[in-house]
C-alpha cells in the first residue's frame, strides 16, 4: 500500500482560488480597457501589451531568483493583473520605457522584495504609478485627446509604433498629437489662475462625457460608467464586498457635497468628483486588493473612508490634481495598524476573544 498523500485542510473547498479571482477581475476590467484602447488607438494598445509583458517577465525573473516554481505562480494571473492595472493608470501615449519601468517596478519593488504574492505591504500597481509620477512628471502627465481607432487624424498601426517607441523623434514620434489636460488637471490649473468654477466646467468636459470616458486621461480610468459596470460584476460574483467601494465613494461624495454647499463657486459637486479621475477604478479594483486592505468589516469601512477622504483632500488642496495613488498607498501603510486594532471575531469566541459558553442542553428558551 502506498503511503497516504499529505493534504492540509480545509477539506471542503469553495473553489475560490487566486486564479479564479484574478480571472474575474480581468473580465470586469475588460470593458473599460477595451474602450480605452479604442479611444486612444494603437499607441495605447502597444503600451498595454508592453506593460503586461514586462510585469510577467519581471515576475518570472523574481521567481527564478527566489528559486520558486515559476509555472505555479505565473499561471495564477496576479502578474498579468498587476501589469494591467499599471497600464490603465498610465497616460495612453506614454513612451515604451514608461510601460517597461512601470511593469518592472510593480513586480520587483512593489511585490517581490516583500516576498511575493500575499506578502506585499503596498498595492504594486500604485507603487509603480507613484514612483513614475514622481520621477517623470512630464511623461506621466502628457495626456492626449481621444483619437478613436480608424477615425480621421488618429494614428495608424505604424504611427502608433512610432509614438510608443519614439522612432520619429520628439515626444510623440513626429506625430501631431492633440495634447489635452485631464479634467482634474484643467480644474486645478484654472482654479489656480483665479477662474470661476462655472467658467471652468463650461469649458471642460461635461458629466456625460466623463461618465462615458470620451475625455483625455489615463488609459483605462476615463470611463466611470464601464468601471462601475465592472465593479458591479465583481460584487455580483462575490470577488469583493460592498464595504470598501461604498465607503471610498461615499466619503468622497459626502465631503464634496459638504464643501460644495459651503462655497459652490470654488468646490465642484459630488457627481463631478465621482466620475472624474481614477476614483471609480480605485474604489472597485485597487482599494479592494485583498493583500493590502484590512480583514475585519469595520476595518474595511475605516480603510475605505480614509482613502475617500484623502482623495478629496489631495484633489482639493494638494499639489497634485489627482490623489488616488497617494491615498491608496497611505491607507495601505495604515492597514497593519487597522488590522491590529480591529480584529475579526474568531469563530466560537466573543469580540474580546473569550470562548463563548453554550447554554446547557434543554436550558435554552
Amino acid at each position, binding site marked *: 500500500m502506498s*503511503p497516504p*498523500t*499529505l493534504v492540509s485542510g480545509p477539506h471542503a473547498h469553495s473553489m475560490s482560488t487566486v486564479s479564479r479571482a484574478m480571472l474575474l477581475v480581468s473580465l470586469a476590467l475588460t470593458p473599460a480597457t477595451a474602450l480605452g484602447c479604442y479611444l486612444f488607438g494603437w499607441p495605447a494598445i502597444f503600451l498595454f501589451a508592453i506593460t503586461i509583458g514586462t510585469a510577467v517577465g519581471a515576475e518570472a525573473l523574481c521567481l527564478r531568483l527566489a*528559486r*520558486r*516554481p515559476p509555472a505555479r505562480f505565473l499561471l495564477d494571473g496576479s502578474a498579468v493583473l498587476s501589469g494591467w492595472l499599471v497600464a490603465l493608470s498610465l497616460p495612453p501615449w506614454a513612451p515604451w520605457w514608461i510601460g517597461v519601468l512601470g511593469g518592472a517596478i510593480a513586480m520587483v*519593488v512593489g511585490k517581490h*522584495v516583500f516576498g511575493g504574492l500575499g506578502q506585499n505591504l503596498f498595492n504594486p500597481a500604485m507603487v509603480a504609478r507613484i*514612483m513614475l509620477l*514622481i*520621477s*517623470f*512628471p*512630464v511623461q506621466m502627465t502628457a495626456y492626449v485627446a481621444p483619437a478613436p481607432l480608424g477615425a480621421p487624424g488618429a494614428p495608424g498601426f505604424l504611427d502608433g509604433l512610432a509614438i510608443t517607441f519614439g522612432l520619429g523623434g520628439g515626444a510623440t514620434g513626429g506625430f501631431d498629437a492633440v495634447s489635452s489636460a485631464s479634467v482634474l488637471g484643467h480644474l486645478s490649473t484654472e482654479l489656480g489662475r483665479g477662474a470661476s468654477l462655472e467658467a471652468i466646467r463650461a469649458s471642460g468636459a461635461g458629466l456625460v462625457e466623463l461618465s462615458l470616458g470620451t475625455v483625455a486621461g489615463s488609459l483605462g480610468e476615463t470611463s466611470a460608467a464601464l468601471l462601475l459596470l465592472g465593479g458591479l460584476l465583481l460584487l455580483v460574483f462575490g470577488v469583493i464586498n460592498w464595504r470598501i467601494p461604498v465607503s471610498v465613494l461615499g466619503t468622497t461624495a459626502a465631503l464634496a457635497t459638504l464643501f460644495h454647499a459651503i462655497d459652490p463657486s470654488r468646490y465642484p459637486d459630488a457627481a463631478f468628483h465621482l466620475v472624474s479621475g481614477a476614483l471609480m477604478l480605485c474604489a472597485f479594483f485597487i482599494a479592494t486588493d485583498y493583500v493590502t486592505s484590512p480583514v475585519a468589516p469595520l476595518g474595511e469601512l475605516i480603510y475605505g473612508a480614509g482613502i475617500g477622504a484623502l482623495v478629496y483632500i489631495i484633489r482639493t488642496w494638494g499639489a497634485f490634481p489627482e490623489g488616488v495613488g497617494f491615498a491608496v498607498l497611505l491607507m495601505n501603510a495604515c492597514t497593519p495598524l487597522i488590522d491590529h486594532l480591529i480584529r475579526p471575531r474568531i469563530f466560537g469566541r466573543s469580540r474580546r476573544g473569550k470562548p463563548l459558553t453554550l447554554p446547557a442542553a434543554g436550558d435554552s428558551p
Partner: protein
Amino acid sequence: MSTDYKTIARNGLWDGNIVFGQLLALCPLLAVTGTATNGLGMGLATTAVLVASGLAVSALRGAITTEIRIPAFVLIIATIVTLVDMAMNAYLHDLHKVLGLFIPLIVTNCAILGRAEAFASRRSLPAAGFDGLMMGIGFTLALVVLGAVREVLGSGTLFSNAALLLGDGLSWLEIRLIPDYDGFLLLILPPGGFIVLGFLLALKAAIEARPARTGTIDEAHERIQQVFTAGALLPGAGQRGEGT
C-alpha cells in the same frame, strides 16, 4: 589580547561594515549619497574622525573610568569632529557647503561611538587606529557605491563636481554616462536611497549565501513529505502522532 589585523580589516570592510553589516549611520548615508562625490567627501571626513577618535580613546583608556566613559568619548569625538569641520571649511569650502549640516552631525554618528565603546577602549593604540581606518574605508566604500548607483540611475552622471573635492586635476572623473537623460528623480530623493540600499543589502546577502545553494521549495516539500511518511511507517510513530 592578540591583535589579528587581517580579522580587523575583514570586519571593517565586509563582515562588520558600518552600513552593509551593522546598518548604522543610515541618516548621513541617505542624506548625502545623491552623488558619488558627496559620498566620498562624507566618507573621508568620517574616516578621519574614526581614526583620530580611535587613537585618542585607546590612548586614554587607562585614564577614563567606566562610569563616565560615554560623556568622555562624546567629548573626544566632538572635539575631533569640530577640527575636521573647520579644516574642511577652510580647505574644501565648496564641498563643505554641499555637505553642510552633515559634517558637524558626524558627532552623533552612532558608528563612531560604537567603535570607541566596543573596540578602541579595550585595545592597543595601533589596533584601535587600524580598526578606525578599516571601518572608515568600509564606510567610504559603501557611501561611494550607493552614491554612484543613485547618481548614474538618477541623473546619468558619475562623480559630478569631483573637482570640488579632489582639485581641478581630477575633473576628468566627472563623467556624463547617459547623454540627454531626464533623470529618475525618485532615486535622488531619500526614498530612492532606501530602495537602492535595500537592493545592495540583498546583493551582499546573495554573495554571502552563494556557496550554500539549496533546492527549490518543491524539492523541500518533497523532502518533508519523505520524512513524514518515513516517520509514519516506524513502529510506534503513529500512536505518538495521533495524540497531538
